[in-house]
């Protein structure tokens, strides 16, 4: 038991208090202050209730057959007192909670905007230059606004270190904002149950030091020039939607798997046989309806104009790297 408690104290995080994770956003301290305000009031009343209860049990415990010495069974002054005092306290707590919420709710005008898409089961973050990443990189000490929507079911973006949570709903936009106060990596969870891999729908917020964010974004956006093509292709596979229909583990989805497909000879709808090479893959991305693999529906949209040549090359290189 003491081993477990010891581990708890050492558990994971640095900073933070007994009840709360570290405070990494400008709003966190305010939220924690209200939390602890309620905590001390609650502790006071809890100790009062349990203390009185224990005292009465000890003081008035009697053997069977002994009857109560008796006391009045109502007292208006007392009743009104213990109705009014809690009433005043909850009004105060309501006000503090509401005021704190408005701070969390209202984002500054000049906030840096990132578009967020939730889908089963990952997050995509799109920056103003169009670059899409699976993790959220933000500059420190700059207000950031997230404009969020879902592709399928309801998700909820939750960053405990920032005390930020907002549902991500299909068919509408929801917003959240924060201003990070300290560089580092922090956890993003999905907080609204969304099915099989709900608990693996994780991402990181990477808070970059002043100046580093712009460097990171520029480098990340140019990943086609700086990364080996297969690696760049792997990133595009995840961020540009291939992964929704094409697996990389050999299982058949809405479309055929990418695993080991390169170099194989595949039967098309209509019976023709095609050797899968660079040109077939390129055609399948630009004009996917022309030659569809037997057993699949012609449902893939064209990516002509949506993917640059360099990106197509990278994806092809990635597919080539997925050996059987």
């Amino acid at each position, binding site marked *: 038991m003491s081993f*477990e408690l010891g*581990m*708890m104290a050492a*558990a994971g995080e640095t900073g*933070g208090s007994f*009840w709360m*994770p570290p405070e990494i956003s400008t709003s966190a301290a*305010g939220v924690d202050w*209200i939390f602890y305000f*309620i905590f001390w009031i*609650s502790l006071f*009343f*809890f100790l009062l*209730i*349990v203390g*009185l*209860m224990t005292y009465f*049990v000890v003081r*008035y*415990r*009697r053997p*069977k*057959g002994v*009857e*109560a*010495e008796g006391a009045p*069974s*109502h*007292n208006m002054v007392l*009743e009104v007192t213990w*109705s009014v005092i*809690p*009433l005043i306290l*909850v009004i105060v707590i*309501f006000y*503090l*909670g*509401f005021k*704190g*919420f408005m701070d969390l*709710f209202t984002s500054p005008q000049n906030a840096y905007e990132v578009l967020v898409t939730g889908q089963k089961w990952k997050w995509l973050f799109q920056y103003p230059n169009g670059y899409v990443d699976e993790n959220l990189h933000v500059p420190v000490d700059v207000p950031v606004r997230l404009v969020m929507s879902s592709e399928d*079911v*309801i998700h909820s973006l*939750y960053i*405990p270190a920032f005390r930020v*949570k*907002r549902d991500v*709903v299909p068919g509408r936009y*929801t917003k959240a904002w924060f201003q990070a106060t300290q560089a580092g990596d922090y*956890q993003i*969870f*999905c*907080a*609204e*149950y*969304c099915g*099989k891999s*709900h*608990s*693996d729908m994780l991402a990181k917020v990477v808070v970059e030091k002043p100046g580093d964010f712009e460097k990171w974004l520029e480098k990340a956006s140019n990943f086609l020039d700086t990364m080996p093509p297969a690696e760049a292709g792997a990133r595009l596979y995840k961020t540009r939607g291939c992964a929704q229909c094409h697996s990389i583990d050999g299982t058949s989805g809405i479309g055929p798997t990418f695993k080991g497909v390169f170099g194989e000879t595949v039967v098309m709808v209509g019976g023709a046989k095609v050797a899968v090479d660079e040109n077939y893959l390129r055609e399948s991305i630009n004009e996917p309806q022309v030659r569809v693999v037997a057993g699949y529906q012609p449902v893939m949209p064209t990516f002509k104009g949506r993917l640059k040549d360099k990106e197509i090359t990278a994806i092809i290189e990635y597919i080539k790297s997925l050996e059987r």
Partner: protein
Amino acid sequence: MASGDMAASGAGVEDNYLTHSHGFKSWFFTLDHKRIGLMYLVSILTAFFLGGVFALLVRTELLTPGKTIMDAETYNRMFTLHGAAMIFLFIIPGIPAALGNFVLPIMLGAKDVAFPRLNLFSYHLYVAGAIFALASIAMGGVDTGWTFYTPYSTTTNSHVIAMTLGAFILGFSSIFTGLNFIVTIHKLRPAGMTWFKMPLFLWALYGTAIIQVLATPVLGITLLLLIVERALGVGIFDPALGGDPVLYQHFFWFYSHPAVYIMILPGMGIISELVSVFSRKHIFGYKFIAYSSIAIAVLGFLVWGHHMFTSGQSAMMNMIFSALTFSVAIPSAIKVFNWLATMYKGAIHLDTPMLYALSFIFLFGIGGLTGLFLGALAVDVHLHDTYFIVAHFHYTMMGGTVIAFLGGLHYWWPKMFGRMYNETLGRIACLIIFVGFNTTFFTQFIMGSHGMPRRYYNYVPQFTPYHRLSTWGSYLMAVGFFLMAGYLLHSLFRGRKAPVNPWGSATLEWQTSSPPPHDNFPEAPAVGDPYDFSNLEYDPSLPGYRRRGGPKA
């Protein structure tokens, strides 16, 4: 001694409701509220056992991050079934339909409920609803969580329709029980039983019945709309079909928040009885407690939006729902203070039911106070959908309602079956459950406020120690429950015969024999103040209480 016991239990050897008639039909088609109550009791305890097994499987899976004993899809079904079985099959019908059915007419001084046939029909509906729920489990279960949020529930390929149909039917069972209780309390009070002579448990059941009748139809309509969308593709909640997923949440919580008061109100009613009887003192502030039950029933309708503070509803709505939510805190606080004042200068006896009442005040105290954190908007944003919520509602629902139910079960057990259980084992089991419960759920507050989201199969390693401790606690609780099952079953066959009034209660059900005759009372009972104990005296030869100056056993 044996002959004394016989005399004490009055007509015990002769006709009572258990021996009145025999055979399966005499039970399954009975119109006797006591037998219906008993059938409900067996049914809900079976559901509680099933829900408990699901809970233990969930906790065992969470011993380690990643896979421990099952895959993610099985886990998602397990926590859904745990929630659905506990809520729809156990806790909602728990106190009103099982204990309430048995006790309400006798406490009131009536022969039966107002509509005995409707009462039986509501039990048959319960069985039908349970069969649908079991069918969905047999077909492979449901993975939506007990809340069936759209559009997940309209798109998942698990067996949502069977389960929601089950919940729909169970809803009608609940409505009929509520309707029956309202009419019974209005129309079947005997001469002398005025509103303010009614025991507080009946006030609580009355408040509960109002919610059951007014809120449950909304759940029915909502689940029906869900089925229509899923089966016919009509766009109501799914944005892909032109619907609004947040609308579902409004509809769902419009029922399901009042429903938590369906669960807790009758529990509070039981505690009012127990605290007064085992303190041998008139309940303090009778009218405040009675009115607070009605206040909770009414206010409970106006707070559903607090489940949706992060859903994207407007800041104005959040503000209104937060303010209304805090208003419910007042009547709850009033009750707790009144119970404490009742104990003051009492003569406190720590029998098993009283130990449950004290556990209730402790656990519901934590459950209620942690509600303050969740009502406060800024703090709720952080705590919403984390284990803090899970801990909070287990402290209110289990630490509150289930503990009160167990207190009531131990209190009325001698009346229901005419037997006493082993008092020492009763106290030990209560203690084990209390310790196990706190170990399981208090740890969940801490991991929740540190950001552990609920309904997670996998988790970041930081939370491992909390999860492990929580699981150990749940095993300890299971030990307590098995011990309880053991001594309660044992008492049915070997238990000492119960006297008419073992606890010295002044309410009417303790004026008739244990167990009561088919018609509840051999002659019309004398209605008096339900909390005036001055006419009762302890007789160690029973052991139990009898009317002062009455014949010695």
